[in-house]
């Protein structure tokens, strides 16, 4: 996570909605804000299985995977997705989780490989800045 993207490399971000949760207001607002901030954004659409999210991340060769989960299923979904990404060799991607995440789940999610967690009230600028600072640089 120490390598920064070069100025001429556009950061590619996957915004994903894993699980059965249909709350996509946040995911769509953030996808638009990231695009407006100059990132290349792919949005998976709803009701994705962990395998579908991993496949999309690999196909698009993204620098950042943003997972939006508001249904409480994060503890089951996040580890599966992170493991899948590692297995497929995308082990440097910045993993962001956004949604209704109780405080007590922060630690387990970070252990499972989530780098940053955003909860209600987080500003778009905060998220944009976090990506600019932490997205991996690839040769």
């Amino acid at each position, binding site marked *: 996570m120490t390598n920064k993207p070069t100025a001429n490399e556009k950061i590619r971000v996957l*915004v994903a909605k894993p*699980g*059965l*949760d*249909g*709350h*996509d*207001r946040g*995911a*769509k*607002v953030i*996808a*638009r*804000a990231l*695009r407006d901030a100059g990132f290349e*954004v*792919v*949005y*998976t*659409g*709803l*009701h994705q*299985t962990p395998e579908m999210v991993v496949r999309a991340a690999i196909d698009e060769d993204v620098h950042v995977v943003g997972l939006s989960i508001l*249904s*409480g*299923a*994060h*503890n*089951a*979904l996040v580890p599966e997705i992170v493991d899948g990404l590692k297995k497929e060799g995308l082990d440097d991607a910045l993993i962001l989780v956004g949604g*209704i995440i*109780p*405080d*007590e789940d922060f630690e387990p999610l970070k252990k499972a490989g989530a780098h940053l967690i955003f*909860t*209600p*009230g987080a*500003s*778009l*600028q905060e998220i944009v800045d976090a990506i600019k600072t932490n997205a991996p640089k690839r040769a």
Partner: protein
Amino acid sequence: MSDAQEIAKLKAELEGFKKRLAETEKKVPPRPERFTTLSDMEVPLLSTPLDLESEGFDYLRDLGFPGEYPFTRGVQRNMYRGKLWTMRQFAGFSSAAETNKRFKLLLANGQMGLSTAFDMPTLMGYDADSPRSKGEVGKCGVAVSSLEDMEELFAGIDLGNITTSMTINGPAIVILMMYYAVAEKNGVPREKVRGTLQNDILKEYIAQKEWLFPVKPAVELVIDTIEYGAKNYPNWNTVSISGYHIREAGATAVQELAFTLADGLAYVERCLARGMDIDSFAPRLSFFLDVHNDFFEEVAKFRAARRVWARLMKERYKAKDPKSWMLRTHAQTAGVSLTAQQPYNNIVRVAVQALAAVMGGTNSLHTNSMDETLALPTDEAVMIALRTQQVIAEESGVANVVDPFGGSYFMESLTNRVERETLDYIRRIDEMGGMIAAVERGFPQAEIANSAYHFQRQLEAKEKVMVGVNKFVEAEEKRKMETLYIDRSIEKRQIEKIAALKKRRNADAVRKALDAVREDAKAGKNMCPTIFAAVKEYATLQEICDTLRGVYGVYSEAGSF
């Protein structure tokens, strides 16, 4: 003086006032540049009879009396003086037995009707043991995979003596047949089965996004329940046409109302296409609106909603039964307005919103709990939310009088504006061929996404304020609040329960019942009778939904944003 003379005098006086106002504003300038509602409608400093004069306001035509056409002032003649609104708190989490306990707590504390929240797998037509359900079982609502769960959910509650609301859409027809089956087993006569099924699939494609089948067959399942209910369960509201989720997804107040009413019109059109008489089903259509932070905008929305619907039913569809003209509505305070920061402030937001719903003449109300942006609510938080309604009803005095804002220059003008803009949207949707066609081309979805983004930008620019989030932020946030935690053991227990059920039931009867469901679906028959038979054989929710998926196919949405 004649009316014309009075108006000319008022105009002249108003010009004078504006000059004096300009002097005052030199010394005390307006705080922001623009004064707007939450939905970004410009708000004037004040309204006068001139505003209503220019809009052609006519008391008898536009307001009339409560309980009478066009129902602007409410659907009951004496409104809350006769019967208070129904206090109905939405509840559901973990297992059926756990939720049954919460139901009984609420009933013991003065709640008047039940309202059921289902978990994500149930909403999507999956059983707890499906791989798709992993991590989701019992999290956002109660897990119901078969009639066995439904029996536990309502154990010890007299279904003949209570109204029940069930918030489910994609597989609503299956859940409704399960509810009817529980009532039947308990010997409750059909006419005493009262309540409301949400069953509004169009708003799923628009906003809530819990769908199973493609749009057209899914809408026909809704019409099946309306048709079957009209004949067999005369006091059950088979559909609750919902703006709540549309608003929560980011729509403005006008978009919420317009898309909701346009959804209602689409169901009406499909019923008429089957040859049903408008007055045979329209009285059982009910509505569900959001009630957000902007007090006046919300009151105006409820008033306009009733007037627009009444006129459409009477003028466009020639309904004759006054009950067909009435827009009866449930309301829920705006979940999206709650903040994780300084969460106790949410109690105040909910109180303001609840007051607006009552001023707007809602028929039923759910008040959100202060902790709902963090988790499902605790018993304590739910009780404060219920008590908020009771304080409004019993202490504030607002329930003594009908439509107290009626005749306010500002409120009438705002109500007219909401009506006008709502009708503009309805006209555009009509031109697209109605809401089914509009949904298929993604029109309301895109409008809502634009509004959501616009609002978020306004928040970031502090043009809109959320206390504790972008203003009056506390450096040291004391966010700690006891919240309800659903552990994953419920998932394992549900899976075991389904396995045991599948061993115990009559496998041959289940197979035959599912075959009958498939045959009727292929033949395009009303699906209620065969699904009713299948649930009584303990066919599971997913078995029935998968059978239907096999016939209708599944829906998926392009990932546009």
